[in-house]
């Protein structure tokens, strides 16, 4: 298992287009990937748009991304990078 913490930068948070982008990226990896709020409850499936929307992550929130599987390091690093890129929003 491998995990990292990051903060959501883009103004619309992880809904709408960024959410679609995020799960599309997560689906590219074999590992089981979860995402959760820092100090929040158990992580949810990061490949599910419904779960991602249900926990509703807004701008400025810190999240924990963890993965378990063959490509866990690459998965977590790529997703963290995507969040930090702000999804092309300003």
């Amino acid at each position, binding site marked *: 298992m491998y995990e990292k913490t990051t903060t959501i930068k883009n103004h*619309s948070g992880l*809904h*709408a287009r960024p959410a*679609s982008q995020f799960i599309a990226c997560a689906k590219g990896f074999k590992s089981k990937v979860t995402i959760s709020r820092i100090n929040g409850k158990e992580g949810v499936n990061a490949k599910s*748009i*419904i779960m991602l929307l*249900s926990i*509703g992550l807004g701008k400025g929130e810190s999240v924990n991304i963890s993965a378990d599987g063959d490509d866990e390091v690459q998965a977590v690093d790529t997703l963290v990078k995507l969040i930090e890129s702000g999804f092309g929003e300003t």
Partner: protein
Amino acid sequence: MRYGGRSLAQGIAVGKACLYKPYDAKPEKKMLEPGECDKALLRYKTAQETALGELKCIYNNLSNEDEAAIFLAHIDILCDDVINEEIKDCICCEGYIEEWAVYSTYENYIQTLGKVKDTLICERAADLKDVQNRLLRCLAGIPENNLSMLQKPTVIVAHDLMPSDTAMLDRSMVKGIVIEIGGVTSHSAIIARSYGIPLLCVQNATQLVANDDTLIIDAFEGVLLLNADKATVESYIKKCDMWLAKKKEIERYITVKSICTDGTRIDVELNIGSATSEELKDSEYTDGIGLFRTEFLYMGRRQLPSEDEQFEIYKRVLSQFSGRHVTLRTLDIGGDKILESIQLPQEQNPFMGKRALRLCFDNLEIFKTQIRAALRASIYGNLWIMFPMVSSMDDFRRAKGIVTEVKEELALSAIPFDKNIKLGIMIEIPAIAMLADQVSKEVDFASIGTNDLLQYALAVDRMNPDVSTYYQIYHPALFRLIGFVAEQFRKEDKPLCVCGESAGDPLSAVVFIGLGIRKLSMGCSLISGIKKLICGMSLEKSERLAKSIQDMSTATEVENLLREALNEYI
């Protein structure tokens, strides 16, 4: 069968009916028969595949990025692993029928998202609802009614069409539209007229008509014919061809210069909304843009357009008009125009409420973003900025002050803009029309919005079908008001345009010219008709007509006089 209706956009259409109704059904909570589980799973899987096919097809056909993103999200939702597993569990482990499994599983998440305070998430609940409906419809084996992908000549029948529906209309296939509510100046009517699609308003139309019925719309006579006999259909196809031929004959006038027989030049300008290529196709034959309804850039989308996005569009339009003026009307929402991206207050009387400029004053960030984008684009052409819903000179001065502020900010950041931009107002509130002598001294130009001016002057809600007979576009008082305004602007030698619906109506246009108006602005489909009129008309004749109207007391008298006098010119 023959039904009467109110014509909102003239013309004749023959086509197959397409009922546009959002699918909405709540399945029963029922258990599966023993041993039915595998079949139920298969039916769910098949419905899911059908739905996916539909969504992919819509997605591939959309060129607008924002619309496409919505449908991409729908595909994600439809294929979501978590929700899929839950639905399968509900069928296999709990033993419910597949309709109930889909309905209840989605409903759960719709409720969850609907309770979240964040408006962006709440909006996603509507997407879940949409996918839920799509799946349930596919399970029921009902084909999709999508206005953007029509296979044959179609007449759309709907309760009403929202701006976002009309944005998706396949204009090559939609021959006519029947709606149940709306007035001459409702959004649907304006769009239909600007694209030359006949539009009829018929009560209970969605209950009278079934899909694939043969429909004939005669929007000259205000008649809807349902499954008429073959001879009637053929005679209407002929009539329709004749109408289209006459339209074509008039369209030849598009390239001519709009000069009266005595040499008086009348500027014929263009009204645009989304700056689509269709709206702009004849732009080279116009004298500029008299009205750029920028609110269309804000409509049917979830997020406000950014400064850069607006800048790019304004820049494109300004460049295309190479030096001819482009009159940009700042955001005019409220009344019949709503936005998904801004929560508007619920009002008793929205047309008299916090709309247009009033709303912008309370949302300065939105207003300033638009002004900034416009000013930045101003170096690419000849930009005029116009404020809507001005009721006093205080409004104009305040708006002008904000433009000055934005100019200062741009100057500080060394961002270039045209320093000589003209600032003007819409004259659509009677109070500001009565002040035209004062107004004309202070503004650089003005434009008369006849739809709202008439609505406010006659105290008639133009959206309310019950009072539509009171909305009299030839009311003599309207011409008196406009005559007064025209006289004042002429004294100050400031440009004055008429950009409301009436500007494209030949009967009214003649009177406007006679009253001293030299600029008329209208939707692209009306330009050739008005040019034909102007070319055949002398200024003297239009002045004489305008003068005789001054002594009339009812709209009927005015209309009869104009129809008789202008029969040969239109």
